[in-house]
């Protein structure tokens, strides 16, 4: 999960036929694509799997058409959203969706939260491996102290304090990386 190449460097390598780079690109964005389909659009596992494979199949096929290599993240997000909507439309022809289903589908609030989550995961990938590992195992993989202790050969009693210290480091890293823009800059 460590990130050494920027998104644009990774895309350029994929375009040149580097299979390792492609594997890294899939790894980097797999959670994001998965989360959009199951959390924002609430697709079933079967539909989410189809969307997941279709997103990466299309990305692989159309990587040459990407105008800005650094924009691979919003490009994949847009592609995933479009395919989720197509899937929901197809499903609603077979089984009409309720108003509530449609209202919840692709909630902007959830999509924004997932963008923030990816930013945090990218920052996490830049933290020391011991922090990356313990935070990912505890929060994202929902592993118990016992499982983490066994996997990382740590006494269970030290895990909570390590998690807290690593969250602090992650926070410092993110705050350092996101200094407020100078007043003259407007976005």
């Amino acid at each position: 999960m460590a990130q050494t190449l920027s998104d644009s460097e990774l895309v350029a390598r994929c375009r040149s036929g580097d299979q390792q780079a492609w594997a890294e690109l899939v790894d980097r964005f797999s959670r994001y694509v998965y989360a959009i389909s199951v959390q924002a659009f609430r697709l079933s596992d079967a539909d989410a799997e189809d969307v997941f494979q279709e997103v990466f199949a299309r990305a692989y096929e159309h990587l040459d058409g990407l105008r800005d290599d650094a924009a691979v993240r919003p490009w994949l997000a847009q592609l995933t959203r479009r395919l989720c909507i197509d899937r929901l439309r197809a499903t609603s022809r077979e089984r009409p969706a309720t108003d509530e289903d449609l209202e919840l589908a692709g909630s902007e609030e959830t999509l924004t939260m997932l963008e923030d989550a990816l930013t945090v995961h990218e920052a996490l990938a830049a933290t020391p491996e011991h922090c990356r590992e313990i935070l990912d195992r505890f929060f994202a993989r929902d592993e118990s102290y016992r499982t983490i202790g066994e996997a990382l050969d740590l006494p269970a009693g030290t895990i909570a304090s390590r998690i807290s210290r690593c969250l602090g480091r992650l926070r410092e890293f993110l705050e350092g990386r996101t200094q407020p823009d100078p007043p003259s800059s407007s976005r």
Partner: protein
Amino acid sequence: MTAFDEERLARLIRALPPAPEAWVRAAQELPLAKAGLDEIVARAEADAHFKARLVADLESALEAEGYERDPAVIKALKVRFKSK
């Protein structure tokens, strides 16, 4: 994104659990599968009968023609031919 209190960081890390390993592996193997995929697609474009069989029942059609059962190829072909 402006505030990074630790509770929010924890929530955001939790929001992106890993995708199922098999899905990730299949997507990572796309380049390896592409050669086999291209051959099948080219054949389907040249042979309407073969294409119709793929659309009707992809896995049986591939098996009948002696193609190796590669999950990545099958997934990509399902997308291409919208087969069940």
